[in-house]
């Protein structure tokens, strides 16, 4: 594939802040018309990467091409084709919903007719008609989010960068939000979205896991789960703390997560008959528990990707 077949393509993209390397040697190809997820813990370089791709930050090394434009040199050419939604609500809280939309339309130079038409379309799509005269600062988290998405898509960008768009939104609004993203993707918009919600990550066409500025996993969500280099086992027990203390020190146990009265273990893939092995250990310590193998989740992939490489677990 040619570089231009990708909406975003970068090679060796690096950004340092003083002694800290926020993004290190990033190679990335984002295909057009897809929802591309950025997953990673706080400080893993998700926001920095997005800002580099917008041309808001100058890379320390490497190069990036966005919609055929080199950033940051040709960033201004990109503005009309791209929308960037910041992590924090960045519209004007002391303007009404309609005033905000009009302002954005005029800054993007839509012209009077297109402005009217686009505001009408997006207000209907994002259910903003009843909110037009409300001050943006008085909206709820979900409403602000709808306004932000309506504003950032007014100029019909071909590429959307969304930086943790659902961090202040309730689950129902989050689902609605994702339905809208799929609609946009169906219309051909490329969407790069960062998140740390696993259910959201699962809905992306393709995922990139970032950890401390480095890509640690990449691929479609299902493939990532299938490729998980660990056995996952769940133990239901009435004494999760003691069970955990018993099993965690074994070197074939890679990670443990407690979910109420259940414990979720990730085990070394070479472990032989893991269920029987755990059962035997539990019996020896006279602890009761039901052991069961389960399928991998994205959270497991996340834990495996971000935790296993660390020198101290």
């Amino acid at each position: 594939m040619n570089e231009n077949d990708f909406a975003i393509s970068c090679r060796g993209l690096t950004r340092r802040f003083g002694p800290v390397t926020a993004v290190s040697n990033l190679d990335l190809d984002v295909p057009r018309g897809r929802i591309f997820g950025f997953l990673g813990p706080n400080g893993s370089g998700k926001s920095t990467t997005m800002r580099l791709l917008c041309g808001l930050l100058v890379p320390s090394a490497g190069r990036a091409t966005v919609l055929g434009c080199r950033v940051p040199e040709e960033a201004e050419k990109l503005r009309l084709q791209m929308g960037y939604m910041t992590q924090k609500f960045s519209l004007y809280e002391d303007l009404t919903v309609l005033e905000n939309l009009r302002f954005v339309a005029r800054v993007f130079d839509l012209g009077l007719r297109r402005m009217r038409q686009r505001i009408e379309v997006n207000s209907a799509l994002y259910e903003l008609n009843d909110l037009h005269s409300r001050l943006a600062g008085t909206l709820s988290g979900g409403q602000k989010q709808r306004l932000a998405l309506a504003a950032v898509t007014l100029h019909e960008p071909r590429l959307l960068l969304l930086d943790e768009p659902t961090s202040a939104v309730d689950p129902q609004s989050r689902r609605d939000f994702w339905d809208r993203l799929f609609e946009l993707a169906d219309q051909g918009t490329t969407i790069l979205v960062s998140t740390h919600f696993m259910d959201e990550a699962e809905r992306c066409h393709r995922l990139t896991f970032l950890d401390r500025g480095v890509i640690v996993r990449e691929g479609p969500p299902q493939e990532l789960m299938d490729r998980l280099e660990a056995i996952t086992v769940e133990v239901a027990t009435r004494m999760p703390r003691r069970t955990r203390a018993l099993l965690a020190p074994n070197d074939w146990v890679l990670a443990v997560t407690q979910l109420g009265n259940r414990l979720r273990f990730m085990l070394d893939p070479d472990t032989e008959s893991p269920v029987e092995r755990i059962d035997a250990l539990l019996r020896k310590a006279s602890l009761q528990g039901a052991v069961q193998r389960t399928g991998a989740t994205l959270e497991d992939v996340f834990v495996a990707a971000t935790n296993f490489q660390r020198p101290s677990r």
Partner: protein
Amino acid sequence: MGLWRAFVFSLSWIPPLLALVRFWFRRTSAIVDKEIRQLFRERLTLGMIVGLPLIQIILFGYAINTDVRHMAAGLVDHADTSMSRQLAGALEASQVLDFVSRSGDVTELLDQMRRGDLRTVLYIPADFERRLSDGDRPLAQLMVDAGDPTIISAIERLVQFLPSPRAVAGQPDMPLALRFYYNPERRSAVQIVPALVGLILNFTMIVFTAVAVVRERERGNLEFLITTPVRNYELMLGKIAPYILIGLIQVSIVYFAGTWLFRVPTLGSLLDLYLASLVFVAATLGIGLSISTFAKSQFQAIQGAIFFMLPMLLLSGFMFPFDGMPRVAQWVGLLFPITHFVEVVRGIILRGATLADLAPQMYAISGLFLVSIAIPVLRFTKRLD
């Protein structure tokens, strides 16, 4: 011995008392501790705590000097005798005024005074020698621009201590007659109201725009705004344009209220006043925007505005005579649009000067506007680093 023991006993109360105070104020001390830590984190604030008083004491210590020196003066000497030259020489020897312009024509020099090039004109009549021997009449006339209170006081002191070239028995001789122009009653309202137009504008305009950019940064609007196609100069011009209108409204309020309440007559044209105000307001808005691009928070922006406000107030020639300041202080003063604008407003309102008469000041304000708007346009990049 008993006294000593009583003293030691009383000392023993101190540690438990201290402990008690610390106990009472234990939460207060946590806040004190936090405040001090935060203060030291904010380097600019810390710089202001140390730097501001230091700069100000140095600057103002030199600047605040009510002894006016080297005031620009004109000389008309119709007598042109050795005695008349001696009189002019004695005035110049005081160093209060320099005769920078000489002419045979009084009206020509008065015209220069109207334009603001001269502060005072000495007129020595042709019959100077006869007046010397005649004890009653003054020898010469000193025409003074009474629009600036500092000039009047300097001139009065000069005339009072000028040794008289003629010997008059008994009473002290006043060799010079003073004639006040543009404010013959020497009312202070007349002197102050025009300058106030500039000072009030200066204050509000700078504070308005100092927070303009940094407010967007603080509220997170900027990160969105810089990903839109809006250009630097579009953003900056858009930010100052509404305030230009607000500035002109303020000019009207201060001007009309001031002149009406304090009965200040206006000799010049109102159109000139508004045109000059327009340029001045734009320049001060540029200064505010410049501050805004340097500040990291609205709080810092206000601190910055105050930082500039004081030297503007003191070095503009409004509070202390510009002619009395040392060179360096004058140069600093000339960098502020307000210094020139006070001259312009006084010229238009009190002396009936036109913008053409005040061209040097207008050029200075315009130049400062260009600089002050160039700083934010060049400094502001659509980047976050």
